[in-house]
C-alpha cells in the first residue's frame, strides 16, 4: 500500500516537472507541423490520388487528414493540461508563502554569498540613526521594512514583490484557454449554410471526420439580396448580404452583414463567408452550324443541364459571372483593366465529342475601339486555369453579321470558289449589298476582318451549334457561416490573464536589497553593507545597483 502511494506520488511529481513540460511543448510543436504540411479535411479521393493506397491508409488510420481532432493529439493537449494543473498545484502555495514572507534580518553568512555586495566603513563620528535616515532617503522607490537585532539595523527593500503572480497568472491562463477551447468544441457549433437570394434556410452543415453532419437552427435565415462591389482594378471590394432572421414565422431582424461585421441573434453569430451563383436564369442563343442560318433560343439555369433532343449534345451550365475584369496590358507594362462583361460557363458533351469547358461572353470583345467579335474561352482540361481565348470573329449580338456570314459563304460558292483575293473581295461586296443594301455600315473594313476571322474559326467548331449567352437574370447565393461558441469568453479571459502574467513576469523583476548598519567595533565607527539580488534582468539590475552604490557613496562622503 505504501509502495503504491509512493509510486503515485512519484508520478505526480513527474507530471508537474519542468522536463515533462518542455517535452510536451516540443512534441506538440512537432506534431502540429504535420497538419500544416498535409492539407486538412480535403476530399478522400484526392488524398488517395496523391499518396497511393499504402500511404493513404497509413495516414488515414493515424487520422492525419483531420489531425487536430484525433485522439492522440487531444491526449497530448490533455497531458499539457494535467501537467500545468499539477505544476500549479505544487508551486502556487510555495509562491504565495514566499511573497508573504519577507525576512528582514539576514545572517552574515548569507550576506557573503551575494553577487552584488558593497561595504563602507564610516568614521567614528557617524551616528547610526543619521546613517539610517540618509540611506532610507536613497531607497525611495523601494518598499522598505526595517528591524534591529544585536545592535545592528537591517533595512530590506523590495521592488516587484508580486513578481510570482506573473507565473501563477500566465500558467493558470494557459489552462483557462485550453478549458475554453474544450468548452467551444463540446458545447459550440460551427457550420455553413448557402442561401440563394430570396430563399431561406434553417439548417447548417459541417464536417466531422469524413462525414457531413447537419444541424437545425432555432430560427431561419432569409437572404433578401447579395451584392458585390468591385474596385476599378477588378478585385472584389465588398461582399454584402441583406439578411432577415425569421423566428416562429415572424421576421424579427433585418440587417446587412459584410465580411468583418457579422450579426448576432440568440447567441448565434452569422458571418459572411462565401458566395456563388444561386441558379441564375440563363438564356442562350444556339447558332446552327448546318448552314441553315437557324437560331434557336434555350432557357435554362445555372447548375442545370440542357440536352438537345435531336443531336444528343448537352450543355451543363456551371457558373455565371456578371463582371469579368481582366488586365489587358502585356507583361511589364502599366496595368490596364477592362470589364469584359457577363459570361456563362458550361461544359459541352455529346456523342463523339470530347467534353470541353467553355466560357462564353455576352458582349463582343472591343479593344482599342475596334470590335473584334464575340469571345469564347475554351478549356480542354475542364480546369479554369487552362482557358484559351477563342475569337469567333463575328459579333453575334448583331443578327446582321450572322446573315452576312451566310451571304458571303453563298456568294463565294457561287463565284466558283477559286478563293483568290479578288474573288473574296467580290464575294464580300456582294454579301454586303445583299444584307445592308446601299447603306454600307461605317465600320465595314473591321467587318471584313471579322468575317475573315469567322471564316477561319467557325469551321473548326465540332458542335452542331454555337451557344452564345443572350440574356440572364442573376441570382446569387450567399455562403454564411453560423457559429455558437460558449467557450469564447473563457478564452478571452484566459488571454487577458496570459498577457498580464507575461508582462509581470518579464517586466516586473523581483529585486531585493538588504542594507545593514552595524558598529564596526569599539570606537571604530560604523560598517554599512548593502547587498542585492534579482531574479530577472541581471544587466538592468547591475546598472541600478551601481547607481545606488554611487549615490550612497556620495551621501556617506558628504555626511
Amino acid at each position, binding site marked *: 500500500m505504501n509502495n503504491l502511494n509512493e509510486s503515485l506520488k512519484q508520478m505526480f511529481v513527474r507530471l508537474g516537472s519542468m522536463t515533462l513540460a518542455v517535452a510536451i511543448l516540443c512534441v506538440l510543436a512537432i506534431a502540429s507541423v504535420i497538419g500544416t504540411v498535409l492539407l486538412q479535411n480535403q476530399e478522400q479521393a484526392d488524398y488517395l490520388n496523391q499518396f497511393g493506397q499504402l500511404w493513404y491508409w497509413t495516414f488515414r488510420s493515424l487520422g492525419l487528414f483531420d489531425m487536430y481532432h484525433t485522439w492522440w493529439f487531444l491526449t497530448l493537449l490533455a497531458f499539457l493540461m494535467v501537467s500545468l494543473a499539477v505544476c500549479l498545484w505544487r508551486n502556487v502555495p510555495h509562491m504565495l508563502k514566499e511573497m508573504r514572507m519577507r525576512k528582514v534580518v539576514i545572517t552574515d553568512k548569507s550576506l557573503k554569498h551575494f553577487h552584488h555586495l558593497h561595504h563602507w566603513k564610516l568614521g567614528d563620528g557617524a551616528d547610526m540613526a543619521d546613517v539610517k535616515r540618509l540611506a532610507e532617503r536613497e531607497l525611495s522607490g523601494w518598499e522598505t521594512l526595517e528591524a534591529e537585532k544585536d545592535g545592528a539595523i537591517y533595512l530590506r527593500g523590495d521592488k516587484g514583490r508580486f513578481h510570482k503572480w506573473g507565473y501563477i497568472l500566465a500558467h493558470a491562463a494557459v489552462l483557462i484557454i485550453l478549458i475554453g477551447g474544450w468548452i467551444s468544441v463540446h458545447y459550440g457549433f460551427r457550420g455553413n449554410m448557402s442561401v440563394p437570394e430570396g430563399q431561406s434556410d434553417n439548417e447548417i452543415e459541417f464536417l466531422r471526420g469524413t462525414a457531413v453532419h447537419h444541424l437545425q437552427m432555432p430560427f431561419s435565415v432569409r437572404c433578401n439580396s447579395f451584392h458585390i462591389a468591385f474596385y476599378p*482594378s477588378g478585385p472584389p471590394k465588398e461582399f454584402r448580404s441583406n439578411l432577415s432572421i425569421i423566428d416562429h414565422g415572424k421576421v424579427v431582424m433585418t440587417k446587412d452583414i459584410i465580411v468583418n461585421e*457579422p450579426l448576432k441573434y440568440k447567441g448565434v453569430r452569422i458571418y459572411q463567408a462565401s458566395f456563388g451563383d444561386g441558379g441564375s436564369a440563363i438564356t442562350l442563343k444556339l447558332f446552327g452550324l448546318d448552314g441553315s442560318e437557324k437560331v434557336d433560343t434555350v432557357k435554362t439555369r445555372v447548375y442545370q443541364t440542357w440536352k438537345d433532343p435531336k443531336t444528343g449534345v448537352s450543355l451543363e451550365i456551371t457558373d455565371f459571372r456578371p463582371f469579368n475584369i481582366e488586365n489587358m496590358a502585356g507583361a511589364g507594362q502599366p496595368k490596364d483593366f477592362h470589364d469584359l462583361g457577363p459570361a456563362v460557363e458550361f461544359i459541352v458533351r455529346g456523342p463523339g465529342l470530347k467534353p470541353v469547358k467553355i466560357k462564353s461572353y455576352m458582349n463582343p470583345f472591343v479593344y482599342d475601339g475596334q470590335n473584334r467579335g464575340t469571345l469564347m474561352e475554351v478549356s480542354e482540361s475542364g480546369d479554369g486555369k487552362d482557358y484559351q481565348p477563342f475569337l469567333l470573329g463575328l459579333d453575334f449580338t448583331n443578327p446582321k453579321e450572322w446573315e452576312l456570314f451566310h451571304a458571303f459563304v453563298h456568294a463565294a460558292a457561287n463565284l466558283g470558289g477559286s478563293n483568290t483575293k479578288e474573288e473574296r473581295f467580290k464575294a464580300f461586296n456582294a454579301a454586303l449589298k445583299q444584307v445592308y443594301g446601299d447603306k454600307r455600315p461605317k465600320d465595314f473594313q473591321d467587318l471584313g476582318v471579322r468575317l475573315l476571322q469567322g471564316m477561319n474559326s467557325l469551321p473548326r467548331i465540332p458542335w452542331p451549334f454555337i451557344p452564345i449567352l443572350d440574356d440572364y437574370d442573376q441570382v446569387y447565393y450567399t455562403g454564411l457561416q453560423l*457559429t455558437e*461558441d460558449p467557450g469564447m469568453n473563457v*478564452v478571452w479571459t484566459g488571454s487577458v490573464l496570459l498577457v498580464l502574467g507575461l508582462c509581470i513576469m518579464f517586466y516586473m523583476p523581483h529585486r531585493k536589497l538588504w542594507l545593514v548598519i552595524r558598529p564596526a567595533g569599539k570606537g571604530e565607527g560604523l560598517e554599512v553593507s548593502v547587498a542585492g539580488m534579482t531574479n530577472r534582468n541581471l544587466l538592468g539590475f547591475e546598472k541600478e545597483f551601481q547607481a545606488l552604490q554611487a549615490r550612497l557613496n556620495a551621501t556617506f562622503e558628504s555626511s
Partner: protein
Amino acid sequence: MSVALANQSTWESLSHGRPGFIRFGAYLGLILGAVGLAFYGSGGYDQQQYLFQLFSGQGLIWCGTGAIIGALSSAVLSTLRPSIADAKIATNLVSWLDGAALLLLLTALLAQFEPPKSMISFNDQSNLFSGRVIMTMNVVFIFSAVSYIAYLFAPDSFIGRLGTWTAWAGVYAGGSALLLRWHESYLINTDIGHAPVSNLYEVFILLCCVTTIVYLTLERRYQAKAMGAFVMFLVAAAVFFDIWLASVGEASIKPLVPALQSYWMKIHVPMNFVGYGSFSVACGAGMAYLWRSRLEARGSNARVLAVMPTLDQLDQLAYKAVAIGFPAFTLATILGAAWAAEAWGGYWSWDPKETWALIVWLTYGAYLHARVSHGWHGRGLAWWAVAGFLVTLFCFLGVNMYLSGLHSYGRLS
C-alpha cells in the same frame, strides 16, 4: 530614442527632469485631443476621413489645445511636486514619443515632394515619392550593415558610430516611407486607402525597421555594439529580399480584399512584427554567441574579442530580445484570434498560419522554460535562439509561400 543623433549629455538633460516631463505632458494632451476629436468632433468619426480631419483646422484646435493643457498641467504638477518629474513612465516614454513626433514631421516634409494629384494613378505608381524613400532606406541599411561588420574587424569608434547613425537613419527612412505609402494609398483613391501592412513588401520594410529599433534599444542600454554586425546582416538580407519583391512587381499599392478591411489589421500585424523583429535580434545575439565561443575555444586573441560583449552578456541579450518578443508575439496571436473570431467565425481554425504561430510560441515557450526554470545557458540556448528564428521565418514567410490557407488572401469564394 534618437539619442545617437545629438550630443549625449544635452539630450539626456532634455529628456530627463522637468523639460522631459513637460514634453511628456504635451504629447499626452495631444493624443487625448486626437481621441477627443474622434469621439466629440463635429461630423463624428469616419475611418476614411479621420486623418484629414486631424490635419484640418478643427484637428489643430483639438490637438493644440490638448497639447497646451497637457504641457501646462505637467508644468504645474512638477512645480508642486518636483519628484514627480523623474517618474519612470515619463522618462522612459518621452524619448519614444520624441522619435514618433520626429517621424511624423519628417513624413510631413517628404509628403511635399509627392507628384501633383492629377499625376497619381493606380496603374502607374512609379512616380510616387515613397519608392525613392524606400530606396534610400535600402541603401542606408546596407551601408549600416557594412559599417557594423567593418567595426568587427576594425574596432574604431567612428566606424561604430557610423553604423549606429545609419541604422537610425534607415529606421526613419523606412518609417516615413511606410507613412507616406499610407498617405499615397489615399491619394490614389480614398476607396483603396489602407494601412501599409497589407502585403509582404510592406511588412518587410516594417520588419527591417522594428528589428533595427529593438537592436538599437538594446545596444544603447547594454553597450552591445559588436552584436550589430549579426543583426544588421539579417536586416540587410531582408532588404535584399524586399528589393527582389519590388523587382517582380510586388511593390505596388493594391486595394484590400474584404477579409483585410478591418481595424484589427492595424493592430494585429504591427504587433506581430514586434515579435518577429525581437526574435531576429535574439537570433543575431545567438549567432554572435556561437561565433565568440568558437573563437574562444580556439584560443584566439583577436582584437574583436575585446569589443564584443562577453559570452554571458550575449546570452543575456538573446534572452532580453526573447523577453520583448514573447509577450508581444503572444499578444499579437491573441489579437489575431480576436480578429478571426470576428471575421471567420472562430478564434482558432488550425489554419496553417495559426498553427505555425502556435509552433513559434511553443518553441520560444520551451526556450524560456529551459532557460529560466532549468537554468540552461550557453551554446545550447544560442542554437535554440537561431533555430527558433528559422521557425519564425517559416511562420511569416514560408507559410505564405508554400502553404495554402486562410492567410492567403487570394479569393473568398
